[in-house]
């Protein structure tokens, strides 16, 4: 009796350990893009894999393609609802007037800047010089040049990776859960893991004006919280990542003062 109630408690706490976290940062002067703004989305970086029984991740080409298609659709729907004019490019040579190398340079620079943002804002290595200044990073003249050449107002960089627990992994978790009834409780072998992040760059100033990270993970295989491969799951992810964009601190204060 006591053992089985323990097992139920363990199962309940394991179910709770599936969670979605999101945390965004914005430039203090950031105002939400509005009107007929032109947004350029650079090569959404999507990978979907399957977690094998032993924990290795098998990259899945078919799932990745499905997820990319679903995310692109969801992104178009979400942005057009806001009134924005969106272009999503899949390859570096698809942007007229900009060479693949130039675009690669901007992408790499953005990647390095994003890493620095994650390091300082999410991993706790905060920089004293940036304290209390919101999001204070820039891609500099390279991004401004890209804006001048193409006429876009903003560039959005988006990364999404999802790891889906395979049947074997779910079975392993179930076995661990079954063990709770006889005194060896190990349901939390690790299940689905999702990491998404996005950065919005103002192409007039080069500033990274907004940044958001969404992590979703479950300790217990078999529990899902939005499958990027499906239109619903992709829409949910886009909503979590981009749907709740908040203006910067100064702008919010002004709005409150009014």
């Amino acid at each position, binding site marked *: 009796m006591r053992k089985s109630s323990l097992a139920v408690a363990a199962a309940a706490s394991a179910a709770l350990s599936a969670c979605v976290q999101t945390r965004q940062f914005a430039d203090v002067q950031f105002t939400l893009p509005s009107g007929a703004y032109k947004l350029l989305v650079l090569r959404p970086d999507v990978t979907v894999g399957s977690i094998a*029984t032993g924990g290795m991740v098998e990259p899945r080409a078919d799932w990745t393609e499905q997820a990319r298609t679903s995310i692109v659709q969801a992104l178009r729907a979400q942005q057009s609802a806001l009134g924005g004019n969106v272009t999503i490019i899949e390859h570096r040579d698809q942007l007229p007037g900009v060479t693949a190398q130039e675009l690669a340079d901007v992408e790499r620079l953005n990647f390095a800047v994003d890493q620095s943002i994650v390091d300082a804002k999410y991993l706790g290595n905060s920089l004293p010089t940036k304290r209390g200044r919101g999001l204070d990073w820039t891609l500099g003249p390279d991004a401004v040049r890209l804006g001048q050449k193409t006429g876009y107002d903003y560039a959005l960089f988006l990364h999404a990776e999802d790891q889906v627990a395979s049947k074997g992994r779910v079975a392993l978790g179930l076995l*661990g859960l079954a063990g709770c009834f006889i005194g060896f409780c*190990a349901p939390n072998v690790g299940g689905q893991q999702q990491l998404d992040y996005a950065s919005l760059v103002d192409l007039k100033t080069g500033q990274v004006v907004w940044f958001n990270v969404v992590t979703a993970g479950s300790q217990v295989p078999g529990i899902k919280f939005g499958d990027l491969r499906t239109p619903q799951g992709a829409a949910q992810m886009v909503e979590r990542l981009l749907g709740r964009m908040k203006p910067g601190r100064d702008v919010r204060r002004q709005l409150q003062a009014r």
Partner: protein
Amino acid sequence: MCARCLEVTRRSLLLGGGAAAATLHTGVANARIRPQDMVPLVGPGYKPTERDEIGIWQLMERAEEEIAGSNLLIQDPKLTGYLQNLIGTVGGPAARDFRIYLARIPEFNAMMFPSGFAIVFSGLLLRMRDEAQLAGVIAHEAGHFLRRHMIRSWRDQKRKTDLFSIGAMLAGVGGAGAGVYLGDYVQLAQLGTILSLFQYSRQMEAEADAMGIRNLAAAGYDPMAMSTIWQQLIGEENASARYRGKHRRKGSIFDTHPSEGSRMVDLKADALELTVPGKVYDRHRERYLSTIGSIRPTLLDDQVKLNDPGASQYLIETLAQDGWNGLLRFYEGEVWRLRNRAGDEARAAQSYAAAVAYPDAPADAWRWHGIALMKQGRSGEAKGAFARYLQMKPDAPDAAWVRQMAG
């Protein structure tokens, strides 16, 4: 904890440990894989058809796009064309499918990616003494692709981690059911799994050596070239370690590659099998040197700035076995000058003086020769050296300063 517990006795643990150690031992000393047994597992124009490999190739597509546009790459078409040609010669059935990139990284390394593109580090071009040696390393990398090593080791790893997880879970749950604690065995099994992964990796490296030397010999190169590479690397690491007052790392059970010594010995045995009696092999040293000639100063410069005087000096002396020249003497001087211990200044001065005696002495050799002479109070001769420097490099960033020194 529990009365019924069947304790894992010390003896059973020792027995288990002994068995594990025995497998380890055979793991390190693998039997030589004979080149004739190495058959390519892919044909021309290979494309993956299985799900896991398709997934990995898709990831690699993006990786290759990044690498191909990286600013670390040396884009000189003469050099990249040369490397592409070499892999086209020793690449077996997939020769036409490979892509090869040259990265400016001053280390001894080259790597093959699962979808058939390779990266060669510039440090490799510095160390190779002739085309046959370089072709040997490239043939080894091509061997990884021809034997489908990446997907095979990926699957091996997946299988073993799957088995281990299931086994560990069953041991836990089953043990709890039976009231036995099997945790010690689980830990032993974990160690065994990890070690068997490393052993598999070493096995693949040995296969790539055997596959590579087979293709190297088939392309008409001297198969003995491959074992000399390891001889040189061992020498370099010994020199580097000795200088730093340490010992060179020897192989261990946690290595992903077989030890350099065993690779050298195996490759030598392979070469003896593959050498065609009476055939005179051309190692194509001239062709190699004339191709890399344009970046050799950069390669040497990157090396001496690694602050590893033991290795740098060994490398320069190894290259000089094919004859000293102004470039090598100059960088020999640079090794001493940058080390800057007692007596090194005089050694460097000697090297610079020796360098400028050769017609191919770089401009900087004249500059440093001039400075050394100046310090010795031989300002008249120094002026001549500075004049020579300015004549060779009129637009040098420090031209104004040198002009002032030269009076």
